[in-house]
C-alpha cells in the first residue's frame, strides 16, 4: 500500500501478516474486498475486531462486523476514525 492514513497502513500490515502470508503486499489495496472475497472468514473477523479494539482503543458492536464496515481497508479506516471521533 502506498497511500492512505496511518490507520489504514497499520490495518493493512496486520491483515497481510495474519491472514495473507506469502501474498504480494502490493495486491492489497485500500479497496480490495476482504469479507466478500473470502479473504477474511468469521474467525479472522473476530481476530481483526480484537486487533482494532486493542490497537485503537475502540469498541465495536456486533453489527459492525459486516461488509459495510469491515470489507475494505478504506472502510475499516473510516470506522476506526468514526469511533475515535
Amino acid at each position, binding site marked *: 500500500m502506498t497511500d492512505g492514513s496511518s490507520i489504514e497502513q497499520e490495518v493493512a500490515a496486520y491483515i497481510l501478516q495474519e491472514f*495473507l*502470508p*506469502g*501474498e504480494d503486499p502490493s*495486491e492489497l489495496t485500500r479497496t480490495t*474486498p*476482504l469479507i466478500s472475497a473470502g479473504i477474511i472468514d468469521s*474467525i479472522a473477523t473476530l481476530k481483526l475486531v480484537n486487533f482494532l479494539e486493542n490497537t485503537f482503543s475502540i469498541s465495536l458492536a*456486533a*453489527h459492525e462486523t459486516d461488509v459495510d464496515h469491515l470489507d475494505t481497508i478504506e472502510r475499516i479506516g473510516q470506522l476506526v476514525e468514526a469511533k475515535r471521533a
Partner: protein
Amino acid sequence: MSTASQLPRKLGAAAASNAAQPVVSSRAKELGALGLVLLQVMLAVVVMGRLGLQSSAVRRVLLFAGAGFVVHHFLPARHKLRFFLALSVLAMFVILGGTPHLAYPDPKIAVPRVAALLGFGCAFIAISLARVRLALRIGALLVLTAVLAVLRSGWFDTGVLNAIWPLIAVFFMFRLIGFLYDITTSGVRPSFAQSAQYFFALPAVVATFLPVIDFKKFSTPSKEAALLTYQRGASWIGRGALQLVAHRVVSQVYYLPQSDVRDGVDLVQFLLSNVFLYLKLSGVFHLLIGILLLFGFNLPETNSRYTLASSFTDYWRRVNIYWKDFILKVFYFPAFFKLKKRGQTFALVLSTLWAFFATWALHLYQTWWLRGTASVSWPDTLFWTILGLLVLVNSLSEMAATKRPAPGRKGFGPRDALTLMLKTAGTFAAITALWSLWNTSSIAAWAALWKLVDLRALGWAALALALVMLAKLLLEIWPEIRAAENKSAGPKQVPLASPLSLFNLGALGAVFLLCLPRVQQLVDHPALQPFWDASHMNDASIEGGRVAGIQNNPGYYESLATVDNPSRDLWQTFMREPLGTPYVGADPSRPVKDFRYKELLPSLKMQVYDTEIATNSFGMRGPEYTLAKPARTLRIALLGSSNVMGWGVPFEETFGAALERDLDAASAKAGWSVAFQVQNFAFNRYSSLGQLDVVRLRVARFSPDIVLFIAHDNDFSWLVGDIQRSIRERMTLPDHVALDVLHGARVAGRTHYEFSNERLEPHRSELMAWSYGHLSRAIRSAGALPVAIFLPTAPDIGKDSVATVEAQYAALLTETGFVTLRAPGVFAGHDPDSLRKFDHYNPLAHRLVAEALEGLLVSDPRVDLRGRAVKAGQPANP
C-alpha cells in the same frame, strides 16, 4: 500451531474485481450475450421438463424469468423495481392458481391465495417498518405469526387457502428475522416497495426451500457489469439443472436405504449416496438465486464445493453460505460480542454452541411450518451437536493458529498440498458418516451399520477418499497455483459467454440428446443405463408417493414433504398432479421376512377410516378358526389383495364373508349337510411370490379343500418389484428362471419400476406363467384344488381394456394349472364410481363379486362342489 489455508485465497481475483468493469463493445454483442443467457435458461427448462425435474411451477417461473429479464434489462433504471415487483405478483397468480384439474390457472383459486399471501406479507413488512419501539414491533409480529400458525395447524379447513399457509411461512420465517435485525442495527428504513421486492421476489413463489437471502446484499446496487451478472445467473441456473439431474441418478439408481444395507460394500454405497442427496437442495438453490441474478441482483453463491472442505469450519462455511451468514449475523456475532468481556475463548465456545443450537431449533421450526408437525429426533439432535462440537474444536484451533500460505504463494510447498488433501479426505469421511446419521431412523440402527465394516468396505472407502483428494488437487490447489503464476487483470470486454456458461450449454445439450429415444438406440451402452433409468422418471410420481405417505423419505429435505392437507394442497398446486388419498392412522400390520413383507397383526381390533378391522388369533379377518378342519366342513382359502381383504369395508360385507353365507345357504337348499368356511388370507400388495409364501406358511396348515386366488393386473408389476427386491435383499427365489429373464432384459435390483416394467413387458407372459405355475403347484401340494379368477382392482373397474386383460389372465391361469373361473361382466351395468371406496371395492362391489363367485363355484363341474360336499358330509369311518 499453524493451519493450512482453507478457502482459496482470492486476493488476485478480489483485486481484479475492483478493477474497472468490462464494457460491452457493441449493441450486437450485447444482444448476442443476452441471447446466449436466454438460451441457457431455456435449455435448462427443456431438460428439466424432459426429465420431469422439480415441479411444473418451477419450470414456469424459469420461463417467466427468461422472458422477464430481457424486458427488465432494457427498462430505464427508475422502472426496474416496479417491473420486477409486478412480474413477481403476476407469477403468484399464475403459480398459485395451479390445479390438477385445469391446464390454466384458476382465478377462483388464485385470487384468494394471492390476496392472503400479499395481505400477510404486507402486514409483516408494515409492522417491521413501523416507527415504534422494537419491542412493540416484535410483539405484533409474534401475534401475527401465531395467527398464521393457527391457520397452518390445520385445525380449521380453510379450503383453497390451505396451500398458502406453508408458503407464507417459507417467504417470511427466516428472512423476516434477518430483515428486522438489519433495519434495527443499521438505523436505515428501506421503502415499503424495496421491502416488498425483497420478500415477494419472483422465485420465492415456488420455493419450499428458499436460501436465507440477506436483505443488505439483495438491496445493495451491483457494481458489476449487468451482463456479467446475467451470465453468472444463467450459468447457475444451468448448474442447478445439472445438479438436479445428478441428484435424480443418485437418489433413484444408487441410493441405498439404511434398511437395505447388508454388508460393508452396501455400507459404503449407503454413506456415499446419502451425502450426495444434498445435490437436490444445492440444485434448487442455484436455480432460485440464478433467477435473481438475471434481474441484476448481485448475490453470492449458495455453496462452494462443500465436498472439498478441509476442516469442519471450512465445511460449515461452504455447505450453505446463506445460512451460515444468517446465523453469524443474527446469533453468533451478537453472542460473541456480549460474552467477549469474559474472555475470547469463553465467548467463542458459547457463541459457537449457541449458533448450532439455533440451527437445530430453526430446522425444527422449519419442519413444523412445512410438515404441520415436528418432533425432536435423536439422530437429528446428535447430528447438530456433533457437528457443532467439531466446528468448535476447529474454531479454537484457528483462533490460536497462524495461517499458512495459500497454494501458489511463497512458502506453500508439496507438503502443504498433501496436508490439505489429507485433511480434505478426513473431513469428507467424517461429514459423510455424520450425514448418514442425520438420515437414519435411530441411533441404534446407525450404530449397528458400522459392524458391517470389512476389508472390501475399507477398500472402496479408500478409493472414494483418494478421488476426493484428487478432486481437491485438480479443482482447487492446482488452479490456485496457476492463477498465482498467471495474474491477469480480468477481461476488458464482456465476453459473449463465460467458460462456465459454455460448459453448461454443452452439458445440458448432451443430457437433452441422451434423452431422445433415437439417440438411446444409437448409443446403447450399459454404462449409460443408470442415466436412462433415472431420466425415465419424473418428480411428480417420485414425490407424489412421498407426499401421499406411500413411500419412505430418504433424507431430511425429502422428508419435509408430508401428508397433511396444507402441504398436500401446495404440492398439487405446484405439480398440477392429483394425489391419492392416503391412509393416515395406525398400521394394522407387521413386517415379515419373506415375500409377503407384511402381514396383519393377530387379535387386532382398530378403526381404519370408518371401518373396524378385527383379526383372529391367526391374523385373519374373520372368526376364530381351528387349525384342524371341523367335520362336515368344506374350507375355501381366499388369496388376494387388499380388495379381497376388504380394506375400508366391514368384514360381514366382504365378498368372502358373503360367499360363505351364500354357500351355506346353497348347501342347506341342496341338502349337502356341510358347512362352508371361507378363510380370508388376503392382504395389501401380495404378489404371486407373496401368495406362494402365504400358501406355504399359513394356508397349508388349515388343510383347505379349495384355494381361490383372485388375480389382478397389478400382479405383473408387483411380481417384478418383488423379484428386484429379492436381488437387493438376497432372498431365495423358487428357481433361477426369473433372474435369468431380468438379467437378459438388463433389469437390476435398483432399476426403477417404470423402466423395469417397460423392459420386462415382452416377458410378461413368461414371468407370470413362471410365478403362477409355482403357486398352483404349491396349492396342489397342500392338498387343495387351485381355483383362480381375474377381477379388476377398484381403480380399473370400467376401463375399456379390462375385457382383454381378463381374457389374457384367464388363459394364463389355465395354462399354469388353475381351474379358472370367469366373470368378465361382474361389474357391468354399474357406474364405476358407485363401486369404489378409498380406491377399493365398496360393499356393493363385494356383493356383486360374492354373487358371481357363488354361482360359478356351485355350477362349475371342474370344482365339483357337489361331489366335494357329498364326500365331506359323509360320516367318518368307524
